C-alpha cells in the first residue's frame, strides 16, 4: 500500500515537473538545434538592430546630426562619409562644421575639406587642406552670390571655379553661417542603422537566450534550475517506467 502511494506520488511529481518546464524544454531543444547548425543557417550573418534589443544589450545608437539645406539633409554618417539624404557622396572627417548654398552649388565644410556639390547632391569636387584650405576654417556662409569661409582669424572669399581663396573685407558677424546641426530625421537614421549602425547577430541572441544570460544572473539561475529539473524528470521518469515493468510482471 505504502509502495503504491509512493509510486503514485512519483508519477504525480513527474507530471507536474514535466508540465512546468515543457515549454522551456522545447525552446532549449530548438535553440540548441539552431546553435548546432548556426553556420549552415547563417545565424551569425543575420543582424538585429531593434532599438529595444540594442538598449537591452547596453549599445547606444549614435546620434547623427546634420544640416537641412532646402529640402536636403547633409550629414556625416559617423563613419567618415558625407551623406546627402540617402546617398554617400564624399569622404568627410568629422565633424561636418557647416553647409551653405550659393548659385546652384551646395557646400559642405568637414573638419579637413570643403566639398562642392551640385544642387541635386552630386559631388563636383573637393578642396582639402592639401590644397591649402585653412586648418582653422570653422564655418561657411553664402552672401551676394559669393561663398565666404570663416576662420578663427579672418574671412576669405572662395571662388568655386578656380578654387582660390582671397581675403574678404567683410565682418564675420554680418555673415549668417549655418553651424548649428540638428538630429537627422528618423527615416534617414533607420537607413543608416541598417547599413552601418550597431547591431547584434541572431546567433548571439539565441545563445544568450539558450544559456539564460539574456536575462542576466537571474536568467542563468533559472536555466540552472531547469537543468536540475530535467535531471529529476529523467529520474522520476525512470522510476515510473521501472514500477510499470514491476506491475506488468506481477
Amino acid at each position, binding site marked *: 500500500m505504502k509502495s503504491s502511494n509512493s509510486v503514485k506520488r512519483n508519477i504525480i511529481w513527474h507530471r507536474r515537473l514535466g508540465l512546468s518546464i515543457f515549454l522551456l524544454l522545447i525552446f532549449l531543444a530548438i535553440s540548441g538545434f539552431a546553435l548546432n547548425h548556426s553556420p549552415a543557417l547563417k545565424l551569425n550573418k543575420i543582424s538585429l538592430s531593434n532599438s529595444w534589443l540594442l538598449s537591452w544589450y547596453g549599445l547606444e545608437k549614435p546620434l547623427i546630426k546634420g544640416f537641412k539645406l532646402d529640402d536636403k539633409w547633409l550629414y556625416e554618417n559617423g563613419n567618415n562619409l558625407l551623406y546627402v539624404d540617402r546617398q554617400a*557622396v*564624399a*569622404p568627410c572627417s568629422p565633424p561636418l562644421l557647416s553647409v551653405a548654398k550659393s548659385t546652384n552649388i551646395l557646400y559642405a565644410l568637414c573638419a579637413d575639406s570643403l566639398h562642392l556639390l*551640385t544642387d541635386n547632391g*552630386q*559631388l*563636383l*569636387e*573637393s578642396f582639402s*587642406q*592639401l*590644397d*591649402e584650405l585653412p586648418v582653422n576654417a570653422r564655418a561657411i556662409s553664402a552672401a551676394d552670390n559669393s561663398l565666404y569661409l570663416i576662420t578663427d582669424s579672418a574671412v576669405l572669399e572662395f571662388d568655386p571655379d*578656380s*578654387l582660390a581663396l582671397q581675403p574678404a573685407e567683410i565682418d564675420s558677424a554680418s555673415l549668417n553661417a549655418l553651424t548649428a546641426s540638428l538630429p537627422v530625421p528618423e527615416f534617414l537614421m533607420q537607413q543608416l542603422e541598417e547599413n552601418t549602425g550597431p547591431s547584434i547577430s541572431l546567433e548571439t541572441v539565441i545563445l544568450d537566450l539558450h544559456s539564460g544570460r539574456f536575462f542576466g544572473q537571474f536568467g542563468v539561475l533559472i536555466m540552472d534550475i531547469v537543468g536540475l529539473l530535467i535531471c529529476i524528470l529523467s529520474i522520476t521518469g525512470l522510476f515510473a517506467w521501472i514500477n510499470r515493468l514491476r506491475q506488468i510482471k506481477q
Partner: protein
Amino acid sequence: MFKNLFNNLFNKAIYTGLLTITLLASPQLSARGVYQSGPDFIAEVFTPQQPEAGVLWFNDNIREQAEKILGHRVLGLRVRYHHSAGKSAWILNEIGKEMPITIGVVIDQGKISSVKILAYRESRGGEVRYPAYMAQYQGATLTDSYKLDKSIDGITGATLSVWAVNKVAALALYYHSQVASQPQ
C-alpha cells in the same frame, strides 16, 4: 658588487627597451605624413613657368574608363589639373589599404615624367614614396588596354600602396590623353 651588476643589467634593459620601441615605431612614424601641399607641388613642377589651371569634366565615356582603371566608382564630376606646353600635372587620391594616398603625377608629351606621394595616411607601406621606387614610372605610357607599358617592381609589405600608385599613374595618363584630344 651585486649593486653594480644590478645597475648594469638595469641600464642594458632600458637601452634595449628604448631601441626596440624606436625600431618598432620608426616605420609608422616615417610612413604617415603630408610631404608637400598641392600648390607647392605644382609650383615645383612648372618653375620657372606659370602653368594654366584646367578642369576636365567627366562625360559618360571618361567616367566609365576611369572607373575601369581604378576598379571602383569615381567620385566627383570634374578633375582639376595644371598644364603648360604639353606638360600636365595631376593631383589624385586613391585608397591604398584603408586611407587615401594623395599622389602627384606629371605627364610630359604623353609620358610620365614624375610621380610623387604628396600625402600618405596609412601606417604601413610608406616605402612607395622613396625616389628609387618612384623613378620606375619615368617614361611610362598607356597601353591600348589602359595599363602602364612598363612593369613596375613591387615592394614587399606595400603591395596595396603600389597598386594604388600604378592605378593613379595610369589614370593620370588617361586624363592627359583626354585633355590632349579635347579642342582647347
